[in-house]
């Protein structure tokens, strides 16, 4: 229990912060990459046809949600441990649970955002070639969202079950 001793009595709190960092950080990073990918694709379309700005913007926004989900879980963890008021005493076990609760939305958010970005980039091709089929392009990209939402649900339920 060397690490335990090193971290002292605040070990639980550290772990909770790590959990929220994973949730908000990874999901946010994923979203950033996803949005970036769609941005590149949208740039290609706009170079040739600036009138398609609105449609491509919607597609670009899609991979951005994972970052919001991550931040949401982060906030919930922070409010549990009392970042916004006075710190609650978190035991080591509770800390581990909070860490675990942050992981699903972080990891799933990271990957789903990137792949949603790619799907949406392909969607930009559809917007370029067949503007009337934009809705379908969005549906394909939105399918990826399902798993981001599921991971959000998983994180949320886990978080709810922790009573400090």
């Amino acid at each position, binding site marked *: 229990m060397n690490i335990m001793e090193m971290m002292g009595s605040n070990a639980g709190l550290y772990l909770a912060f790590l959990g929220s960092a994973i949730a908000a950080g990874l999901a946010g990073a994923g979203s950033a990459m996803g949005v970036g990918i769609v941005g590149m694709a949208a740039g*290609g*379309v706009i*170079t040739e046809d600036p009138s398609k700005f609105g449609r491509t913007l919607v597609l670009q926004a899609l991979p951005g949600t994972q970052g919001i989900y991550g931040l949401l879980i982060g906030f919930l963890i922070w409010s549990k441990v009392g970042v916004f008021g006075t710190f609650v005493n978190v035991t080591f076990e509770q800390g581990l649970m909070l860490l675990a609760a942050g992981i699903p939305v972080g990891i799933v958010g990271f990957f789903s955002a990137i792949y949603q970005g790619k799907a949406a*980039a*392909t969607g930009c091709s559809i917007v*370029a070639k067949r503007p009337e089929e934009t809705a379908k392009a969005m549906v394909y990209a939105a399918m990826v969202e399902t798993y981001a939402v599921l991971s959000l649900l998983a994180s949320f339920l886990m978080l709810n079950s922790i009573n400090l």
Partner: protein
Amino acid sequence: MNEDNYIYSVTRIRALENKLLDKSKIDRMVEAKNPEEVIKVLYETSYAGSVSEIKDIGDYEEMLSKEIENTYKMVKEMAPEPELIDIFLLKYDIHNLKVLMKSSFLNEDNDDLLTNIGTIEPVKLKEMIREKNFIFLDPEIKRGLEEIVNSFSINPDPQVIDIILDRCLYTVMSQIAKNSNNSFMVEFVRLQIDLININMFIRVKAMGYGREFLKKVFINEGRLDYNFFVDAMDEPVDILKDKLLISDYSNVISEGIDNYIKTKSLMKFEKLSDDFLLDYTKKGKYVAFGIEPIVGYIMAKENEAKIIRIIMVGKINNIDNELIRERLRDVYV
């Protein structure tokens, strides 16, 4: 090469594909009563800009080469692997080299035949040819040019220039493709070479030349090797049909050769070859991100130029609409 790098260029290509000529526009051009009407149809397309510079109907050829030049310039700018685009541009360099070599042997000036589309400026090429200094060129081409200079001093045969430079062209093309490790491009070059070899084989037979000559013109980088053709040299052309029955080319071969035997004209075969290559690049339509859509777009654009040229030549010479249609290549879109 990471396909992410293609995201920008491919979506841009998708937007550009919308501006390619569609079947109805081409039909209208074929139905046009005179060349002026064809130009009028072009005014409604992405060609409007370049068409407006046409003063005389005969200028359409310059308009087309300008359009091709612009296409390559744009594609090369946005392609993540511009060296792959050189596979398409090389043939223009080789064309310039042929013109310059022949001009230098003839002591003539034929600068109006040079094109700006290639990878090296014609002015620089001219300088190199004048000084017979080829070290800045691809080693393969350098060797080819030196071979020409040597053989011409013994036996001045203009055909040798073309034959050697053509071989250099396809050798360098397949080298670039292989170095890129892009299997799509490697295959693309090999298909081209095979079709050219088959075409040359038939023509060599028709001209009545033997194996020696075939060996001289043969391009080695294809899937079918020299021995394949040598075995068929003494047989009637039909034999290719059986020999290539199970290959990818069976359609091109059987229809093309049937037509050749009937009419003694390779027109159909050449049209089918073009269509076959275009078909291959049409795969680009279903690949999300990669070089394929870009290649597809280049081929579509070159094909468009061919279509417009056929229609214009047809209209200027009062050829029947049906004959023009027969000669038109498939459309990419």
